[in-house]
C-alpha cells in the first residue's frame, strides 16, 4: 500500500519525528487560508507516485494569493495517471543542503537496506550511475537492527560536517519507522539540512507491505487506495485477484504462473487478453464467481479456460465453470484446456454437460480463442 507524502509524513510525525508544518487542502480557498497561517509555502500535488516536480505538481508561493493560484493550477492535474484532488501546503524551509535517505527491503541480500546519499533531490538510479562515490548502502541484520553506531559507520568519509550527527539520528529514526510499520520502502528525497542546523524530511515516500496490513491497522487507513476499476473492486470483494486489461480474450486459469503464461500465449497468438484472473490455491472452488467476473467485462469476445491442476482439482474448477455457464448462459465461445489432477473427470464433464471438446494442447485452445475473438 502506497502512502501519499502527507500521509507518510503523518506516520513519521506519529513516530515522533519532526516534519515541516503543513496542511492538506482540497481547494484554492483552503490553500490560501493555509498560507495565511503558515507564511511562505510550497504547494505540492498529493498523488501516490513520483516525478511530481517534473510534472509541474510542485510550486513555491510567497503570498496567500500565490498559494491560491498555485493550488488552482495543480488541483485537477493528472500525474502518473492519478488525478490530483488535494495539495499539501507546507512551510518553505531555509535549505542549506539536500540529501537522500531510504530504507527498503532488498531481495539480493534478503535483508533491510539503508541508503544514504549526499546528492538529494535526484533519482537514486541516476545518483548510483553518475555519482556513486556519494552513495552509501548498508545491509542490516534485521534481528540486530540499525543503531547509531551503524549509522555513523554508514556515513563515514562523507563530507557532512555538523550535519553528520542529526543525519545519523535521522537514519536511525527512519529505520525504526520502517521496522515498526512493515514498510517495503521509506524514502526521503530530499532530506534537508536547514540553515538552523536541523535535518528534516522535505518529502516522504512510504510503501507498506500489503501482507502486513493486518497488523498495521493504526496506519492502514492513511494509505492511498489502489485505483481499481469497478470489476477489479468486485473481484477484490470476492477475494479474487482480478486485473482488468484492454484486450478481448477472457482468461480463466489457475495459479499465478499459469495465468501469466496464458496471457503470454494469447498475446503470442496475436490476441489481447482482457484480464488476469487466477483461481489457484484456496480460490479453486470459486469457478462460478470467477467466470461471472471475466464475462462481465463487455470487451470479452471469447474465453480461454486453462486449467493445470496440481493442488487445485480440475474437476472441481470445471464444475464451477459449468455451473456458471448454465446460470449465465453466455454467448461468447469458450475454449478449454484441462490437464493434471482430476483431468479425466473434468474433461468428461465439460464434454457431456456443455457439449464442448477440450483441446489437447493449451496453445491450440488459445489460438482458437484468439481466432474467435477477431
Amino acid at each position, binding site marked *: 500500500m502506497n502512502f501519499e507524502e502527507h500521509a507518510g509524513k503523518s506516520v513519521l510525525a506519529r513516530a515522533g519525528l519532526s516534519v515541516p508544518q503543513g496542511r492538506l487542502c482540497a481547494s484554492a480557498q483552503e490553500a490560501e487560508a493555509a498560507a495565511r497561517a503558515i507564511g511562505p509555502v510550497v504547494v505540492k500535488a498529493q498523488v501516490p507516485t513520483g516525478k511530481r516536480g517534473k510534472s509541474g505538481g510542485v510550486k513555491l508561493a510567497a503570498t496567500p494569493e500565490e498559494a491560491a493560484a498555485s493550488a488552482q493550477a495543480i488541483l485537477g492535474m493528472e500525474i502518473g495517471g492519478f488525478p490530483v484532488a488535494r495539495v499539501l501546503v507546507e512551510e518553505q524551509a531555509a535549505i542549506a543542503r539536500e540529501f537522500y535517505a531510504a530504507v527498503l*527491503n532488498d*531481495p*539480493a541480500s*534478503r*535483508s*533491510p537496506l539503508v541508503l544514504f546519499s549526499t546528492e538529494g533531490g535526484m533519482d537514486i*538510479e541516476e545518483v548510483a550511475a553518475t555519482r556513486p562515490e556519494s552513495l552509501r548502502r548498508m545491509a542490516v*541484520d*534485521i*534481528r540486530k537492527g540499525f543503531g547509531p553506531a551503524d549509522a555513523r559507520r554508514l556515513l563515514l568519509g562523507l563530507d557532512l560536517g555538523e550535519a553528520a550527527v542529526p543525519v545519523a539520528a535521522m537514519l536511525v529514526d527512519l529505520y525504526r519507522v520502517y*521496522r515498526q510499520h*512493515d514498510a*517495503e520502502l521509506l524514502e526521503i528525497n530530499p532530506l534537508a539540512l536547514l540553515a538552523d542546523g536541523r535535518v528534516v524530511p522535505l518529502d516522504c515516500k512510504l510503501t507498506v*507491505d500489503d*501482507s*502486513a496490513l*493486518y*497488523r498495521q491497522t493504526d496506519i492502514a487507513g492513511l494509505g492511498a487506495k489502489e485505483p481499481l476499476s469497478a470489476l477489479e473492486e468486485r473481484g477484490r470483494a470476492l477475494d479474487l*485477484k482480478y*486485473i482488468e*486489461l484492454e484486450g478481448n480474450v477472457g482468461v480463466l*486459469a*489457475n*495459479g*499465478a*504462473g*499459469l*495465468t*501469466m*503464461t496464458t*496471457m*503470454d*500465449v*494469447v*498475446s*503470442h497468438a496475436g490476441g489481447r*487478453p482482457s484480464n*488476469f484472473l*487466477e483461481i*489457484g*490455491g484456496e480460490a479453486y472452488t470459486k469457478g462460478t464467481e470467477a467466470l461471472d467476473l471475466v464475462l462481465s467485462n463487455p470487451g470479452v469476445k471469447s474465453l480461454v479456460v486453462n486449467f*493445470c*491442476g*496440481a*493442488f*487445485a482439482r480440475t474437476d472441481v474448477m470445471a464444475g464451477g465453470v459449468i455451473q456458471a455457464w448454465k446460470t449465465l448462459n453466455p454467448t461468447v465461445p469458450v475454449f478449454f484446456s484441462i*490437464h*493434471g*489432477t482430476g*483431468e479425466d473427470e473434468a474433461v468428461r464433464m465439460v464434454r457431456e454437460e456443455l457439449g464442448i471438446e477440450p483441446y489437447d*494442447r*493449451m*496453445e491450440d485452445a488459445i489460438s482458437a480463442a484468439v481466432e474467435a475473438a477477431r
Partner: protein
Amino acid sequence: MIVRKSDRVLVQGITGKQGTFWTEQMQAYGTTVVGGVNPKKAGQSHCGVPIFATAKEAMANGGFDVSVMFIPPAAAKAAAIDAIEAGAKTVVCLTEHIPAHDVMEMHAAAAEHGTRIIGPNTAGIVTPGEGFVGIMPAFNPRVFQPGRVGVISRSGSLGTLVCLNLVRGGHGQSAFLGIGGDPMIGTTTKDALAALIDDPGTDAIALVGEIGGSMEEEAAELVAKTDKPVVSFIAGRASPPGKKMGHAGAIVTGDRGSYASKRGALERAGAVVVDVPGDLPAALDALMAEAAKRSGAQRLAD
C-alpha cells in the same frame, strides 16, 4: 536440495486439512515422513506418525532432515525459526503472503544456522519415483515420470504444465525444484540450477522463469559455464508493468525484472528460450541431440 527417499520429513501443521491431505499423499508416494508438529496435540499421533509440540522436540526424539510448513502467514515466522533452530537441513515454506519483514527474519536465522529455506510461496520439490515434499501432484503419472531432466520453477501451476509437456514429449524428470513466487526466497534460481548441474542424475535442465527480480539474470552466469543443455520459458511477457501478477515477486518496475532482460541474459549464456511452453520438449530434443553428438565426437577423439 533434491529430495531423496532417505530424507526424514517433519510436517509442521500436520493436523490441518491441507497438512493431513498432503501428508497422506507424500506417504503414499514414498516420502519418509517421521512426524508432525502441533503444540495442542503433542503426544498424539496423526497419519501414523507422532505429533510433537515443536520442531525442537521432534529433533530430540528421532530427528528429521526436512521440515515442510502447512502454516498460515501470521504464524509462519515462528514455525520456520523453530525448525531452523532445531537444526533442520531444509525448510520448505509453502505459505504465501508472509509479511516481508518476517521473511527476512527467517532468512537471517537460516543463514546463521546453515539451513536451506525453499520458498516462501513454493509448491514444493519432487523427485519422481523417490519422494516429494509440498503440494505438487507427484503421484500424477502424466505430470511426473522418473527421468533425466531437472526442472526449476517459481510457480507450481506453470511448473506442473511444463512437467506435463515434458512427459508428453518423452522426458521424465530427475527433479522438480519449485522455488517460490515471492520476492525474497531462500533458494534462488541460481541455487537450484547449481544443484541440478551438480546432480549426476540430471542430463538437461528446464528453467521456468518469470518477470520480476533478477534471479534469471544471475542464473545465466551458471548457464554459461555448464555443458548441460538448458531450455527456458519466461512467463509474464504480456503482463503490464507496475502490476503484481498474482505472485508478489512478479512485478516489473522501470527496467527491473523485465522479460527482455531475462531472455537476453539466458540466450547470451547459451540457453534456448522458447515463446510458448509447448515448445520446450522439442527445444530440449534438439539440444540434447546436439550434446550427444558432441560427446560422441569427444569419445571418438579420445
